[in-house]
């Protein structure tokens, strides 16, 4: 019994749980694409079993500290980040947060530059530095979106930043529900810290946002990174949960973009062209 969900999502991998949390609790229940999942740890082998309804799920993996499942037939692998193999980086899960809005809205918010001065005032932006300077967006049906050349003044760009500076940002949207942010490291400004957002579509109008951080180590503590990211995401959540409608409209003109929103506009177009419907109000 396969629901009417597009293969692009059904036959892909989705992060559904933080593996360390599951190790502690032994069991975990969640929902993916409206399908209830039950995860169970086998302490003997330290492996995970998952069931969807009553049926066992064959496609299950542990990667980047998360448990991943595919409900259909996996047609491609879990997203690959070469940076995660660097010895001088600290890899960590930074929380899995339930948000009562379409996961597409959560991805779009992650790509959004002009909210930083308002929603994250004093940290990732600040008035009067509200202007969004032009940046570039490239879109390809196969590889997704790349957003480059973003420059943002940030008073406290990371847990170890001591003063404000202009940060170089770039983003990649790799899958409809997966986006990654690269930002200049405050110490080695020619290398980039990475934060990935894996959004688990729970239903069309709710999601769990799983955050993966991959920072250069320089004096960074895992707990501080986690606390910083959870604090930042805690600022986004009430905004996201006050968006109406909860699903993201893909028809041009339903919401009014400005030039600062070219990444968002490209994301919506890319979703529409890829035929993503789940979590969206499809273009007429």
């Amino acid at each position: 019994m396969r629901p009417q969900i597009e293969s692009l999502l059904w036959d892909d991998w989705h992060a559904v749980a933080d593996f360390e949390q599951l190790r502690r609790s032994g069991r975990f229940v969640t929902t993916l694409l409206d399908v209830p999942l039950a995860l169970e740890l086998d302490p003997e082998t330290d492996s995970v079993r998952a069931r969807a309804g009553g049926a066992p799920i064959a496609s299950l993996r542990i990667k980047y500290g998360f448990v991943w499942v595919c409900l259909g037939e996996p047609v491609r692998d879990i997203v690959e980040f070469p940076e995660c193999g660097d010895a001088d980086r600290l890899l960590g899960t930074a929380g899995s947060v339930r948000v009562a809005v379409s996961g597409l809205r959560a991805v779009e918010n992650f790509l959004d530059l002009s909210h930083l001065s308002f929603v994250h005032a004093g940290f990732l932006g600040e008035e009067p530095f509200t202007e969004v300077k032009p940046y570039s967006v490239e879109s390809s049906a196969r590889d997704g979106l790349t957003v480059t050349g973003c420059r943002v003044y940030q008073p406290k760009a990371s847990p170890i930043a001591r003063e404000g500076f202009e940060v170089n940002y770039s983003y990649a949207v790799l899958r409809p529900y997966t986006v990654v942010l690269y930002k200049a490291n405050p110490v080695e400004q020619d290398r980039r810290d990475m934060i990935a957002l894996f959004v688990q579509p729970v239903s069309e109008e709710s999601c769990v946002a799983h955050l993966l951080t991959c920072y250069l180590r320089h004096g960074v503590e895992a707990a501080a990174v986690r606390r910083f990211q959870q604090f930042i995401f805690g600022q986004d959540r009430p905004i996201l949960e006050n968006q109406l409608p909860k699903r993201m409209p893909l028809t041009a003109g339903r919401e009014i973009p400005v030039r600062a929103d070219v990444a968002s506009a490209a994301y919506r177009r890319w979703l529409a062209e890829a035929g993503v419907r789940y979590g969206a109000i499809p273009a007429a």
Partner: protein
Amino acid sequence: MSAIGLTAAGDASDPIDRWFPVARGEEVVARHIVQTQLLGREIAVWRDDAGVVNAWENRCPHRGVRLSIGLNTGTELHCRYHGWRYASGSGQCTYVPAHPGQKPAAAMRVGRFGAGEAHGFVWVNLIEPAEPPHLSALASAQATTLRSIYARAPAVTVAACLLRGYRFALDPTGADDSPTDAALVASDAYTIRASVHAVLREAVVTFLLQPVGASQSVIHGLLETTGETSGVDADRLAVLRHHNAQMTALRDAAEELC
């Protein structure tokens, strides 16, 4: 009518082009934004520093964030998400912080509804921006807005309950302090008058029902009295408490039927 912002459709028989009270005027205080709902549509109600009341669609046209979580500066409303500013009256966007040098396009405007104040209430018409109705029952009477009561029952049920009988005391702090049966007249499905009288004295409660959605409503009440009143604050409070108790009983009875 757009499907956006509809969390619960109004009853199909509810007329759209009509004035409904949505709040008591004194609740729409300076620099605040009141969130309410009428026939399933969310509305952000706010007063500017000149006293003008706005009733706007409760979503920013940019990304749909509720304007009721924004900021009322006294002349404009600022969206919480990206700081877009909208002028009182026109609803026109005046400033987009991401592009400080650019004049916002005319299309960047919030959805507005007809809004006005009369008889101590803020009234909204989803279609027509015109004048709210005149509904005073008694000439030269003393009028008091009663505490509005939220009911988990549609307006039609509240009206039916009310028309079965309603009791209140003509003078809760004086000689006529026991509730008596009121004479009831429905001028339409949402406006029902309950009156009690004695020699040279009369009290009328005009019930104004706000259809929030298919299964909820707000009961607003306007009390008008003629004849002597004591003018003592303690007595005024006792009167308000009495009507609050009677309206709460009405609410409970209506919810019982649902």
